[in-house]
């Protein structure tokens, strides 16, 4: 018996040691062994560098909606080209159909909201950042505010009714404003007024936080934020603010591209990130933009003077005598959509003109045109009466900002100002018309959004 009890004791002791050993094996490794990253390229963003890296995603940012370009009247397409368009949405948009999104592409909405999401993730990481909140921190925060506002600005121009001059914009539907990266946050449409308030708030914060310059031109700067601000003020008919923001931006961003100094005959006269580009962003690509059956509206071509270098720089003549758009300031085949020096000059000129400060307006107009006309023949515009000046500024706007989708924004606001522009096009023998202030100036929200979040659709 003694033996047995001794044996049992021994067994117990041995088992005890064994268990201790096995357990200690567990303790030593659990913490460190499982800390290893499963995929070396993954990161939970916490540092400022992580945030910068997210904001440097030019596939998300630096890309913007394309359908407004197709819907406006700058170009037309042959019947054969129309048939060959890759996505039914392009045909439906070109002819202002009731719901162009049936074809499936909803990038103009989805991809822009991805920008809002990325910006919100960046702001969220920054709000939890425990390190020193230095200039780099401010730049990143300003960048995120700017990028979010720029996205909202694209969305509101396409998916909300135009800001109404002299009406109650708090009763008009705006877009969905997202406050946080939480994907479960309830989704509702704010009012148009709230939307613009948010845009102004974000942009003003961005102006106060961003540095004057940044490299490369995909990253936001103070001048860029001011430029976007001036665009937003134009949309809301706040001309003095628009003019001043543009003016300030042009003071900060002092580079100028004189078309006399480039080879306007080259098939691609512009280089990416050249002086003209303040903020680099390009339009989403659809087959419409690549079609060789798309030609420039001939009445628009007629507006270009022979000494206007933009005619040669922007366009090539096709074999049928029509003009095609080849010289894009993106420097490649993509349509530029960001902010350029030209736009700011024209924003300032229009703003001052509408304020009644014709002299200031003319100064900005002449400064721009000197960079655009053949210097050999260029004579500054001496005097024009107020309405002629405004008309000239708006005409230069069409000529300068061709192919960027900005015309849609202009049509929406100019018709509010009583421009009375009716768009007409003929496709395969059928005539289509878009009357001023038509509900079809507001795109319907893609079905996926409507069915999944239940937000209200736009009337068409």
């Amino acid at each position, binding site marked *: 018996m003694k033996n047995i009890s001794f044996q049992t004791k021994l067994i117990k002791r041995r088992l005890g040691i064994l268990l201790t050993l096995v357990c200690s094996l*567990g303790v030593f490794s659990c913490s460190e062994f*499982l800390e290893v990253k499963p995929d070396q390229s993954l990161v939970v963003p916490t540092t400022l560098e992580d945030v910068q890296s997210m904001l440097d995603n030019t596939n998300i940012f630096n890309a913007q909606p394309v359908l407004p370009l197709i819907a406006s009247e700058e170009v037309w397409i042959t019947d054969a080209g129309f048939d060959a368009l890759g996505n039914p949405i392009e045909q439906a948009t070109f002819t202002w159909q009731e719901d162009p999104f049936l074809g499936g592409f909803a990038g103009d909405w989805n991809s822009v909201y991805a920008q809002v999401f990325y910006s919100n993730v960046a702001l969220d990481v920054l709000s939890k950042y425990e390190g020193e909140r230095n200039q780099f921190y401010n730049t990143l925060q300003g960048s995120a505010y700017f990028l979010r506002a720029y996205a909202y600005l694209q969305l509101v121009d396409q998916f909300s009714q135009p800001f109404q001059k002299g009406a109650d914009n708090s009763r008009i539907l705006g877009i969905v404003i997202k406050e946080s990266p939480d994907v479960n946050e309830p989704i509702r449409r704010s009012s148009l007024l709230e939307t613009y308030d948010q845009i102004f708030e974000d942009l003003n914060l961005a102006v106060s936080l961003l540095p004057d310059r940044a490299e490369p031109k995909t990253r936001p700067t103070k001048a860029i934020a001011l430029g976007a601000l001036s665009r937003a003020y134009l949309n809301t008919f706040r001309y003095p603010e628009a003019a001043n923001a543009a003016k300030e931006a042009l003071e900060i961003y002092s580079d100028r591209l004189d078309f006399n100094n480039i080879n306007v005959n080259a098939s691609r006269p512009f280089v990416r990130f050249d002086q003209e580009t303040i903020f680099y962003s390009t339009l989403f690509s659809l087959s419409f933009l690549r079609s060789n059956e798309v030609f420039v509206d001939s009445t628009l071509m007629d507006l270009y003077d022979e000494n206007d270098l933009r005619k040669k720089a922007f366009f090539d003549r096709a074999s049928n005598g029509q003009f095609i758009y080849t010289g894009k300031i993106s420097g490649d085949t993509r349509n530029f959509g960001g902010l350029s020096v030209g736009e700011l000059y024209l924003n300032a000129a229009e703003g001052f003109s509408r304020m009644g400060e014709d002299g200031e307006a003319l100064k900005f107009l002449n400064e721009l045109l000197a960079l655009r006309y053949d210097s050999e023949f260029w004579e500054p515009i001496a005097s024009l009466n107020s309405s002629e000046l405004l008309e000239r500024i708006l005409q230069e706007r069409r000529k300068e900002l061709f192919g960027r989708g900005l015309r849609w924004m202009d049509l929406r606001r100019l018709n509010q100002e009583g421009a009375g522009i009716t768009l007409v096009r003929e496709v395969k023998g059928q005539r289509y018309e878009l009357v001023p202030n038509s509900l079809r100036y507001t795109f319907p929200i893609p079905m996926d959004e409507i069915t999944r979040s239940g937000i209200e659709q736009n009337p068409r």
Partner: protein
Amino acid sequence: MKTLITILILLALSSHEICGQSLKVNGTVRDGKSDELLIGASIRIKETGIGKITNQDGEFSFELEKGIYTLSLSYLGYKSSEIIVEVPLIKPLEIQLFPEAFELGQVEVLATGYQEIPRSRASGSFVNLNEELIDRRVSTNLIDRLEDVTSGLILNRTGDVGRDPVSIRGRSTLGRFSQPLIVIDNFPYDGSLEDINPNDVASITVLRDAAAASIWGARAGNGVIVITTKSGKVDEKIRVSFTGNANWIEPTDPFLIPNLGVNDYIDMEERLFGQGFYRTLENDRGNAVLSPVVETLIAARDGVISESEAAGQIAQFRTYDLRNDLNRYLYRTQLNQQYNLGISGGGNSHTYRVSIGYDDIREEVEGNSSDRITFSLKNDFKFLSDRLKVQTAFYGVKSRALDQNAGPGDLFFSTFSEMYPYARLADETGQPLPLNRDYRNGFKQDLQEVGFLDWSYVPLAERGRADTQSERNDWRVNLGLSYDILPGLRLNGLYQYWENYGRNETIYSQESYFSRNLINGFTGLSQDGRLNYGIPRGAVYNWSNSRSFSHSGRVQLDYQKDWDQGWSLNALAGTEVKSLESTALSGRYYGYNPDLATSQVVDYVSLFPLSFNAFANSRIPNTDAQNLLRDRFYSFFANSSIGYKNRYLITLSARKDASNLFGVAANQRSVPLWSAGLGWTISEEDFYDWEAVPYLKLRLSYGYNGNVDRSLTAFTTARGTSFNPITQIPYSIIVNPPNENLRWERIKISNLGIDFESRTGRVKGTLEFYRKEGLDLIGAIPYAPSSGISVFTGNNASTRTNGYDLSLETVNIQGKFNWSSVLLISGLKEEVVSYEQEVNVNSLLDFGINGLGGNYFPVVGRPLFGVYALPWIGLNPDTGNPIGLLNGEPSEEYRDIINTAELESLIYHGSARPTSFGSFRNTVSYQGFSLSANISYRFGYFFRRSSVQYETILQGRGGHSDYSLRWQNPGDELSTSVPSLPEARNPFRDQFYRRSSVLVENGNHIRLQDIRLAYSLKNSAKETGLFRNAEFYLYANNLGMLWKATESDWDPDFGPMRPRRSIAFGVQLDF
């Protein structure tokens, strides 16, 4: 770890002397016929009443005083016997038991990867395949050999097949990791199953329920397949076995692909040309290629050739058919050859097995081949009077493949289009001919004249110019130690190192079309007529290397004790660690000179103008990529079974898994899972007196398995990318939005099983009912895009599967002439129980659109993979337009039909995967001959046929052969359901037809899967002295359909194609 083992060994060794008081009585129990060790045989000492059960190695031992004892031996299905022994023994006992005339209760040994248990000690659901069954089928791949011989297992042919090629009792996860866990020699296998030589496999055990599989915890959710490799046997003379077979497989029949015929294709090209369709392409800035017919029509229009010449040429084109040329020049009968030599044997304390295998595959495409060499060496040693066992094993595989890049898969017209059907690969004399490809011929010629490289595409001349060679070396080393610390208590230590090295390289020589095309594209013509090469001339060399390795280790304690009162306990507990790392690198060299092995640098950053499009520019393609992945697992596990008098059995199992999940809080890195089971051998009860069925056992189990989706995180995670062509600055992509509620998937399984056997042993079987509930399943649900994501992945679904598996073995005729049958019947009903979001109706309707399924679409109350359709009324008798239903009324407003479709208005046909399947295998034998045929069936499911889509046809890109069956004149609607050719492209009309119920077919079918005819010389050793055993066999596979419900010529599982028939001849010799 090493020190730990050393300490344990030292500890254990010291115990030996203390037990020396009583004398040791030990030995082994074997099957007297087959010499197999018997695990779980019961030995009782009559004098003392002490009982023991043989362990995993068929061994037992007692401690007894000196004297004479009677040992009573019994084992289910064997004749009981008694032997008298005198203690002390001179040498360990070697006891033989002989089977009863028939075997009662199955005696198979089931391997779980942690232990081997006799069937009698199992409460869970196991399927065991023995060597004979594994070897029945001829294939180089192990998984194929499981099909239609494993109850409850099915090879999926539809729906997410890439991630989910095999299902065991349905699919209880939505996620990415839906494959069963494969365990080889006790450790999960990380390599490719193609690297396992089927000839080295001794048995396969499939673990189907929680009690069987929960020892594998969080990796067992989809079932576990445990593979055990062959070993040498104790006290066996050297045994040499050779197997060899050659398998001829018919090539793919290109005529089965439902493509537009040559005449229809050319007619359409002519029609489109008449409509001016090609004008846009003619003016294309990218000089996009046009087909020979279109080029001919252009030449005629422009007066380059006369109308009659053109007509003549086109008439000539109509006589060509690419499919004939494919048969003639590219396809051939595939020949797979397999040879394997194994040598095994063993002495008292050492057993060994060494094997060498060689496989050679001559692929069906000319110029492609692959081979594989496998080597294995396994040694088992026993020391310290058998108390210490050491196992070592080495497995190595080297596989190589050569692809000469000349197959039908390389025949393209342009990046987006397939080759025109009247392409001609060679002329009457067999001289290879050029085809139109990528750019227009005139344009190519113009550039060739100024010095560009020859730009012609001659597919048959391409063979050998762009060889892809791939090689994979895979090896693993296993080391096992087990030591009997105390009677009944054994310590096991296992370790495995696995490594896989893969290399893949393609050298596109400068003569290859690929290189010429790429170089020409980046060649610029300067003003002075000189050529600037963006990409240097020479070969393009693509390479990729991958290396993976893993360390796995396990320490485990086994305890076994039998009490006199009839109780027995088997328990094990241990811990396991695993670390897996894989790296992959790939890249490309330009201007490669194979003779000197030199390459040239290129400028990846600048934009180069493209020679074929004056308006486009591009960077030189950069294929450099690298990644590094690390998986780590850490687990604790325990398992025990308590039995009473062979009658009652309780099993318990638990496991906790932790893994290096990324972006989750530390407490979310692990999950505990458990299971419990009950076994009741009713036939052992005293009250049991059903003589016809002398063996009846009831099994009941319940528990949880798990499934881990390693790609998800609770925190926001981003992935870095290294190159941004616009800014040259690295950037990151957000891969997961924040999800604080992330949990592990769990699968709750209940199983009820009945095992029975008739008195004569002629009928035996197993019937099981089960319920699997997938809880907290991770699924992707569509999300409102304004949230910034359009798909959200999280724990948002649950599923339930109810099913049964019956396997019934009968011996119908016994005697000189034998006839036996095996019937496997499985049925299951899968349904989604909850899913947080309603799925998009259009996605549901698109399932199976391309003939072979697609992703899952969870709909509550329906299986994961279902076939849905829009109601179909018929064809409009006046126009041939398809008619659907809109708000309950017949309608041709296709756009509205599609856009207003709701789940309620769709027709739900049924599951897209078989809900009832099985096989019926019959074997007849007479003397040395045996003939076995397997008939398989699949019932209770539907599939969608593809048909014509005018969208592509009206763009001159070809289409479906149903075009020729289309409605053309009033009255046709009585004989066809193919809509008429519309005036203009109408995507909604196409979509409506594609999604309509008229294309849905019933998948039910029965096919004759295979036949095997064998002749074996069993006893020839005595007569000729040449072999112990010799078998010659013929095996024919994929023999054809016996019956199918659908009237269409589609195969429900293979679409328009057919599984390729094959016939093999083989020998198996044992010397």
